């Protein structure tokens, strides 16, 4: 083996003194034996995909921020952007502090149900920086695993953020979102990804199937959002005294569209990264089902809104794309392309009626988060039983389990925060906008006379 490396050096005659990553790598592989080369190489490329996918999931947070900002009033835009900076920051730190070691435990406090881990240490120690991590159970290093999962963590809080926008007290939301991400999401996640009870349904044979998290991520966020909105109440002026709905318009459709396209883009990392390796077979399938479900959701929501509302509604078309994406997230690797198209298309229909329904029952959700993530999350999860061969019972149990937990956790947490410090800004602040009220800043100060 040493000889081989020497030969390698000879081939590259102009080799410099400095260290050579390629030679190092080769030497490392050869120290295991040539027969391990494919394993190393597959590991390396899979790990690369994992970190790139993490980057793509990161950009979803910009998508959420701009979508949310676009669909709300300009007087609350600073507040919304601020919340999104907060969420991604606290989400990452919290996941390092206790999320990661909760999702990969071995150490439950309550077996299969509750286990809170501690901060991560040097994840490259003990050979975790090579293909040895998890005993080849994963084709990535522990840091790769960490950063990919960490980017998911903040998603749940972001979903709630959109639903409670334009009226929630900033400090209360900051505390709420921190606890939701730190404990709520991590616990629910551990049921599925941490080897908890959901992964053991039917003795593991009929395990709950949720590929990239229709239920565990999106459904969790949607159910938590529903509880939050119920406690918080609608925005002032949204529903008139005589029971009519008075829409409060989002201030920038371009921002909203940028948000949705970025979410679509990032979803390739969300679903594609959930393959957890660069295995060409599932990777190509997942990219294809993801894109086609989104497209089908877009088209079906366009025609549904056209039929129902008489006009082709852009905000519904945008939500339709997202609905398609949420609908395929649970089964992206388990269904055929045309099943994916049907799943996405049905998601696009559902989201239109769901938004109309929640508006009718006076659940005021400015961005449609409950419908997109919560309702389509249910559909997407159940659809894996219909189209992907998962156990219908397990899917149902999983949905009910996660949604009820998220709803109750969010409800109790919100009520406690409400009791202690309040959760809603004053009427006057709501009229004036949270930008001035909470931050003393304006999003577009230049349009005012003063800045001239």
């Amino acid at each position, binding site marked *: 083996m040493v000889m081989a490396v020497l030969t390698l050096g000879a081939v590259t005659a102009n080799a410099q003194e400095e260290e050579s990553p390629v030679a190092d790598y080769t030497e490392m592989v050869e120290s295991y034996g040539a027969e391990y080369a494919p394993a190393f190489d597959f590991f390396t490329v899979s790990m690369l995909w994992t970190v790139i996918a993490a980057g793509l999931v990161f950009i979803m947070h910009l998508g959420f921020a701009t979508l949310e900002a676009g669909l709300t009033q300009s007087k609350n835009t600073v507040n919304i952007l601020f919340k999104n900076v907060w969420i991604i920051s606290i989400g990452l730190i919290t996941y390092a502090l206790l999320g990661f070691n909760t999702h990969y435990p071995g150490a439950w406090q309550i077996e299969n149900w509750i286990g809170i881990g501690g901060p991560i240490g040097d994840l490259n120690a003990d050979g975790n920086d090579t293909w040895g991590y998890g005993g080849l159970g994963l084709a990535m290093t522990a840091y790769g695993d960490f950063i990919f999962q960490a980017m998911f963590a903040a998603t749940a809080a972001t979903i709630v953020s959109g639903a409670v926008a334009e009226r929630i007290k900033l400090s209360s939301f900051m505390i709420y979102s921190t606890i939701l991400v730190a404990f709520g999401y991590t616990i629910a996640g551990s049921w599925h990804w941490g080897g908890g009870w959901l992964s053991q349904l039917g003795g593991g044979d009929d395990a709950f199937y949720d590929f990239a998290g229709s239920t565990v991520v999106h459904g969790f966020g949607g159910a938590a959002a529903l509880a939050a909105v119920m406690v918080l109440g609608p925005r002032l002026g949204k529903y008139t005294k005589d029971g009519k709905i008075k829409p409060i318009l989002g201030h920038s459709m371009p921002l909203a569209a940028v948000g949705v396209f970025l979410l679509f883009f990032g979803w390739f990392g969300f679903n594609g990264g959930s393959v957890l390796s660069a295995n060409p077979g599932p990777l190509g399938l997942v990219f294809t089902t993801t894109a086609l479900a989104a497209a089908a959701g877009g088209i079906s929501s366009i025609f549904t809104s056209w039929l129902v509302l008489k006009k082709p509604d852009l905000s519904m078309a945008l939500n339709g794309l997202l609905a398609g994406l949420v609908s395929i997230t649970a089964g992206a690797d388990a269904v055929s392309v045309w099943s994916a198209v049907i799943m996405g298309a049905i998601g696009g229909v559902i989201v239109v009626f769901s938004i109309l329904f929640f508006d009718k029952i006076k659940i005021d959700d400015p961005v449609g988060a409950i419908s997109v993530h919560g309702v389509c999350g249910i559909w997407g999860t159940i659809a894996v039983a219909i189209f992907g061969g998962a156990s219908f019972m397990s899917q149902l149990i999983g949905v009910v389990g996660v949604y009820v937990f998220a709803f109750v956790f969010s409800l109790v947490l919100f009520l406690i925060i409400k009791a202690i410090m309040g959760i809603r800004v004053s009427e006057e602040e709501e009229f004036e906008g949270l930008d001035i009220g909470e931050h*003393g800043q304006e999003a577009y100060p230049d349009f005012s006379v*003063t800045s001239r």
Partner: protein
Amino acid sequence: MKLVVAIIKPFKLEEVKEALSEIGIEGMTVTEVKGFGRQKGHTEIYRGSEYTVDFLPKVKIEIAVPDDVVSKAAEAIVKSAKTGKIGDGKVFVIPLEEAVRIRTDEAGDAAL
């Protein structure tokens, strides 16, 4: 004819419009303005520097009315726009010598 000009708080626009509707006034022109007055603007911060926003967003409503409707209109505005807090705004009455409806060339009270 008079031109009744009201400067009000933006979120009162809807109510004022309804109050005017009730007394039969169907036409008006609205402008976004900034007001400066007793009501002081808030202090804001930008990158560490404090500054005062003197000018607050207000809405200006202009309504041309026949002479006999002036006081009713002014009253309706005052009542519906009042919050009792500083910055509620003003109503001004300006003489109007002529009015023409562009569509029909009607002039005078008939144009309003």
